[in-house]
């Protein structure tokens, strides 16, 4: 009896995935899109910040680094709550109109994963910095050439940081739920339902087959991204 419940759920989930249920597809695509935008934005801001932080030496640099490191593990519910307060119509950023929008989720996730991109970029820069700087310097490179060389040598680490950031964004629930609101109207243009929020909802409703199907898709996305990143890493290491 107890196992039947699980097996039925799995059977239903397989059917939904195999048949390519349009609602599931829609939600999965939105998830990838929203978190993909978050990852791209986080990369655009975080990589330059990380490079500067990794290459330069100034007072307060250590403090800045430990702040970003501490923010790596910020609970997504807390982040979602804070963002909700800021983005709510009466809040300080209410005028942006981001609450309950896809862009709002992207914005929130971008803030969530920014510390990942920055911290990992800093550490991949630092891991090559000393050796490569000395080598390039003694071979006659100028400051700018040295900087480019260091970034080039840490590129695989930087790309990995962006992938790790995307994985965290696509799998988080707190921000998507509180900022996005899990809105779904069939055929509607303002939907904000993503994989994590819909899993939470279907479980609450007892529709285990849907929840399992979505969970499987989420895991498949994360695994695929990880596999791609491993492949890229191997390729880079292969020629490094």
């Amino acid at each position, binding site marked *: 009896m107890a196992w039947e419940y699980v097996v039925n759920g799995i059977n239903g989930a397989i059917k939904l995935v195999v048949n390519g249920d349009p609602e599931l597809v829609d939600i999965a695509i939105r998830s990838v899109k929203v978190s993909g935008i978050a990852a791209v934005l986080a990369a655009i801001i975080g990589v330059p910040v990380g490079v500067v932080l990794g290459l330069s030496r100034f007072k307060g640099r250590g403090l800045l680094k430990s702040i970003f490191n501490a923010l790596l593990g910020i609970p997504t519910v807390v982040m979602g709550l804070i963002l909700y307060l800021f983005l709510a119509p009466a809040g300080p950023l209410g005028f942006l109109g981001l609450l309950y929008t896809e862009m709002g989720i992207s914005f929130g996730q971008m803030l969530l994963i920014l510390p990942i991109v920055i911290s990992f970029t800093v550490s991949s820069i630092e891991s090559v910095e000393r050796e490569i700087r*000395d080598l*390039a310097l003694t*071979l006659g490179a100028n400051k700018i050439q040295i900087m480019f060389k260091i970034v080039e040598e840490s590129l695989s680490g930087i790309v990995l940081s962006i992938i790790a950031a995307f994985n965290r964004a696509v799998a988080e629930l707190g921000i998507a739920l509180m900022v996005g609101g899990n809105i779904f109207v069939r055929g509607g243009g303002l939907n904000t339902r993503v994989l994590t929020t819909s899993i939470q909802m279907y479980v609450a409703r007892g529709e285990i087959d849907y929840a399992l199907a979505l969970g499987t898709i989420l895991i498949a996305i994360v695994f695929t991204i990880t596999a791609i990143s491993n492949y890229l890493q191997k390729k*880079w290491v292969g*020629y490094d």
Partner: protein
Amino acid sequence: MIELRNIEKKYGETVALKKVSLRIERGEIFAVIGNSGAGKTTLLRILSMLETDFLGEYLFNGKDARERAEEVRGRITMVFQNPVMFKGSVFDNVAYGLRVRNVDSDEIEKKVEEMLKLFRLERFRDKSARKLSGGEKQRVAMARAFVIDADVYALDEPTANLDPENARIIEKTIKKIKERGKTIVLATHNLFQAKRLADRAAYIESGQIIETGESKELFENPKHPRTQNFIYGFDFF
């Protein structure tokens, strides 16, 4: 060519060099010999202006090196104890010093090929430099330095941990480079190598230069008891 006066270098509490004074003449091979931790690498890093935070005076061609650090770095190239390879091919590695000097690509091609031949690296040309063996990497590191038309080459333990064949290739090439009128500073704890290659040598211990002289004289007739201890200590093996 190079003159050091009372150079002192500290890493935190550690005194790496104490009152080091020496002259290195144009066109000679000058060996710095001493045990592990004696300060050889530190000395070479200062000569190459990779360390600029030291006390004392460093004159390069009669002028203060710290005031013209960039220029000095362009004229003296160091080969590190552990060969660090850039990502990319052997060719890319060897070409780097020419590329940053904006040498045109035909010229780069020609010079790099010549160096690869000199170090018997032709067949590794397009291989990933980081996949080479230790001895091959060491040769790439040398080729990468010697392809640059510098005045001085500072070589830090160029043959430590290498098999006799690789060591022989490297020693032969060092002699060839000297014949082109280049100055070579060689840090080593290998007495026999210093004896084979160097015109003059300095024995360094605990950051201090104990004795300097013509290498034949220094090795066969060391004056200072500590130098004697270092040199005759080896004869028991």
